[in-house]
């Protein structure tokens, strides 16, 4: 088990956003957590990377080690990387500098040239825009940059938060294709959190359905995609 989350509780002040959620991810899997806006998806990811404290009794294990109380940057060093909601690239850094932040503290360990070549293969636009400030990029380009920033460190697990938000359908498709490729061709473990249920289910191995901070369904992605309740809840058909 690469990542194991037990009884995760998250509260903001006195409002509870996530109620006792447990899930796990095996190495090499692509897992989705799907749910509507406000279901608590982003809170879960923020707890995984340590930006939001989780409640008592909750525990998070990574590669068999308890990381529940580890600060964010140390989790990043261990290989947990995130593609945040709305990309959140550093707006006043250039594209290239944004990529460099991804290997902060790892520069000695990573073959930068080779990594960059590999990434530019996926995202040619990032090479073209190398010296541009990243706030001048379009939404889709920023998302690509955010993925590249996370990938450059050779993460053990990639967390992807609402990547379809604000992207054109064509791009959504492309981005999901890339995520699928990364998982299948390069064996990168990925956890996707999405409200675009079908797009993410199509590339996932397994999925969890989150409603109002609780997991209400889980199973194989190919099974869930057939599920009548899912189709009703997320499509109204």
């Amino acid at each position, binding site marked *: 088990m690469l990542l194991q989350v037990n009884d995760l509780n998250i509260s903001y002040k006195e409002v509870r956003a996530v109620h006792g959620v447990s899930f796990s991810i095996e190495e090499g899997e692509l897992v989705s957590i799907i749910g509507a*806006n*406000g*279901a608590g998806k982003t809170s879960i990811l923020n707890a995984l990377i340590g930006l939001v404290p989780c409640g008592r009794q909750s525990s998070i294990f990574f590669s068999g080690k308890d990381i529940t109380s580890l600060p964010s940057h140390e989790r990043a060093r261990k290989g947990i990387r995130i593609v945040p909601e709305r990309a959140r690239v550093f707006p006043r850094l250039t594209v290239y500098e944004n990529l460099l932040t991804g290997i902060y503290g790892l520069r000695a360990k990573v073959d930068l040239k080779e990594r960059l070549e590999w990434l530019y293969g996926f995202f040619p636009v990032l090479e073209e825009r190398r010296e541009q400030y990243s706030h001048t990029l379009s939404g889709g380009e920023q998302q690509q940059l955010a993925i590249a920033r996370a990938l450059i460190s050779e993460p053990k697990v990639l967390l992807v938060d609402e990547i*379809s938000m*604000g992207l054109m359908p064509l791009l959504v498709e492309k981005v999901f294709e890339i995520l699928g490729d990364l998982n299948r061709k390069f064996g990168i473990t990925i956890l996707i959190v999405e409200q675009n249920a079908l797009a993410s289910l*199509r590339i996932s191995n397994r999925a969890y359905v989150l409603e*109002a901070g609780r997991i209400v369904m889980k199973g194989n992605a190919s099974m869930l995609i057939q599920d009548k309740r899912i189709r009703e809840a997320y*499509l*109204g*058909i």
Partner: protein
Amino acid sequence: MRNDRAILQISDLSKHFGGLKAVERVSFDLLEGEILGLLGPNGAGKTTCFNMISGIYKPTSGSILFHKKRTDGLSPHQMARMGIGRTFQIVRPFATMTVLENIIISLGLQNYQTIGRSSKKWFTPTTRQKAMEILEQVSLCGLAFKKAGILPLGDLRRLEIGRALALKPELLLLDESFSGLRHEKISEMEKLILSLVKKGISVLLIEHNMKVAMKLCHRVVVLDHGRKLAEGTPEDIASDTRVIEAYLGKGGSAYYATSSE
């Protein structure tokens, strides 16, 4: 399509933020007594539309007519006075005040217009009673003296509707009032909205839970990347291939086509 019964007419509305075209030439009408759903994926420009209608943003171009009067460019407090109440996607209660006070702030609409009236006392038995009546409508009576900041999301969404109702609006803008709610809360909210429409309030709501929107709305406008993708009855929309594509991506629609055969 220009209708005499239209309470709100949006034509060619655009909003650009720098290079980003958040809303691009969107037009639609809202009829009196209607529930119109504004649907679309995240980032489609729905909330931006709302913010223009309620006066928070000034449109880049296009016009908004409320009761046949141009209202684009007016500020939020002027819109509130004209009879448009709204809720927020990310709830914005006055957190340190009580639930009752939150409602009373809205009840003061008329008192904010002249110095004389605004110097009167606000916490009177009459206003209190009016506020309690509104709280009753949104079933928050039991929480009247709690601080708004500690309420759970569902109650806060109802509190925001209550605040909007206290303005005695003709048009209610509901921004994702269902999101983050559990099943049973969703049906409560549906009932509430239907009861409001019965009282003659027109409703424009943003939703991306298709199921809820399809059930509740008389008509639906679908936005995608700032443009209007489709408009029509829920049935029309549900079978519109463009809509399905926007929501599911091409693969999804292919899947939909094969599995429904």
